[in-house]
């Protein structure tokens, strides 16, 4: 029973991070209509930039490193859009997908050139977890949970109550009508990249804090985010958030039944099930942000 509650907690922690990845990925899909394979590298870049700022010679605090890393990833996403995606604005979605795959490989290899393929970890001292009833949780994990929760809450406030956030939903819902009322789609697209980059970078830093970091960490997390996006219905931000938690929980509860080596296969398994039986997602595409 103890292991069940522990897995539940681990699932929630992982799920809260996957929710951030998935929300950004689905937001880009909803407004630009392609699956951005390089979203994984925004995650990876967040983790590596935070690592860069925390390690010698800079030795900044985790908070400051996080802020600088998120800023760096936002700039990277805007650069990606400016140099690659904006030139393909009206192109076939398949072309955009392949371009993003190319960017993804480029950035992975760039990271490998700069940092090597070695698995690294943030320079946090080893911690003894605090015991709460049947579960053990470290202070890093507590921080992860509240940072993820705060980020999701801010995303909700932005999309639901801000004028620009509503325009983002309007463009995702009906781009021609949004233009009719004077919404400039290029401006909204830039906002979407900023939001998606913040979500990816925060998530990437958190996942690295919870586990470790290496140049190919983007891909495995992209698969999870993709599964979560499909669960929620492509383009549906609220659905993607819930999908993230479902993936996190099923990975961590699944290994109670399956050998641990199958953990990464669970997201693939869910992708196949959803595509076979409910390609529109559990909640349908026309819900939530749209």
């Amino acid at each position: 029973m103890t292991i069940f509650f522990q897995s539940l907690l681990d699932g929630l922690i992982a799920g809260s991070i996957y929710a951030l990845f998935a929300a950004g990925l689905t937001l880009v899909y909803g407004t630009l209509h392609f699956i951005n394979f390089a979203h994984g590298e925004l995650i990876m870049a967040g983790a590596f930039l935070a690592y860069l700022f925390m390690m010698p010679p800079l030795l900044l605090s985790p908070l400051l490193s996080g802020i600088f890393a998120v800023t760096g990833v936002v700039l990277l996403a805007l650069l990606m859009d400016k140099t690659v995606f904006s030139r393909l604005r009206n192109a076939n979605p398949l072309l955009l997908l392949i371009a993003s795959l190319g960017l993804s490989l480029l950035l992975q290899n760039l990271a490998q050139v700069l940092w090597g393929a070695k698995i690294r970890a943030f320079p946090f001292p080893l911690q003894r977890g605090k015991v709460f009833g049947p579960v053990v949780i470290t202070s890093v994990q507590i921080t992860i949970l509240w940072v993820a929760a705060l980020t999701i809450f801010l995303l909700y406030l932005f999309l639901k109550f801000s004028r620009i956030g509503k325009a983002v939903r309007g463009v995702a819902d009906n781009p021609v009508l949004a233009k009719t009322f004077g919404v400039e789609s290029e401006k909204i697209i830039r906002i979407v990249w900023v939001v998606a980059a913040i979500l990816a970078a925060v998530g990437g830093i958190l996942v690295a804090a919870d586990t470790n970091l290496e140049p190919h960490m983007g891909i495995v997390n992209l698969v999870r985010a993709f599964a979560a996006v499909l669960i929620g219905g492509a383009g549906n931000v609220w659905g993607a958030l819930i999908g993230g938690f479902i993936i996190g929980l099923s990975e961590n509860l699944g290994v109670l039944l399956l050998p641990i080596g199958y953990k990464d296969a669970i997201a693939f398994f869910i992708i196949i099930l959803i595509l076979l039986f409910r390609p529109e997602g559990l909640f349908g595409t026309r819900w939530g942000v749209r």
Partner: protein
Amino acid sequence: MESSRPLLSLDALTTGYQRMQVLSGLHLTVNPSEIVSIIGPNGAGKSTVLKAIYGFLAPWEGVVRFRGEDISHLPVVARVKKGMILVHQNDNIFSGLTLHENLEMGGYLIARGSLLKERIDSVYEQFPFLYKKRRQAARVLSGGERQLLAIGMALVSEPELILLDEPSMGLAPRMMARIFEWVGRIHEMGKSILMVEQNARQALAISHRGYVLDLGKNRFEGRATDLLEDPKVLSLYLGGENSHENL
């Protein structure tokens, strides 16, 4: 009705899509507080006229003027700011947004929150059913209600000129009558209206002037009452004189 300067004028407008020319040398004016209808057979380019006026389509030749100013090459957003708004014939609401959020999008360019709220409240006064359903997603609305929401969204921006693309499209006769009644009421609020309509008779019945478009060219134009009695217009575009009695 005749004013010294028209609100909107098209001067020898030629445009189209890619290599397909749709409009050739079109002339059209809308004077302040006038209702003008564009009628004509399917494929005459009626909706294209509205797209060109609104900036969704660039002119190949000719000029679009608003209050005397050449706006031919301004982007859509600049034209909205000058005081015009287009109501599309379909897909004219944000189906996933609530009714209230739809109205807020209608006033997207109104930066001041208090002013936006005031405008939305006045739309709620005119369409109380919108207020009742304001927290529901717009997809729950019926066809006629959608059309009224779309008109409500256009009113939030307080335009001088409203471009209506087939407002009665696909509606039941009773709802159609209600939409035309609303067009009249919006006119009473002091707005000018340029309307493209398939239901030519009903459109002309509430209009001051009309244009008959065929194959992208001006065929007839004049006071709406004159067009409704012109034998050529009647037989070619209004389904003959006999059907006049039936309607």
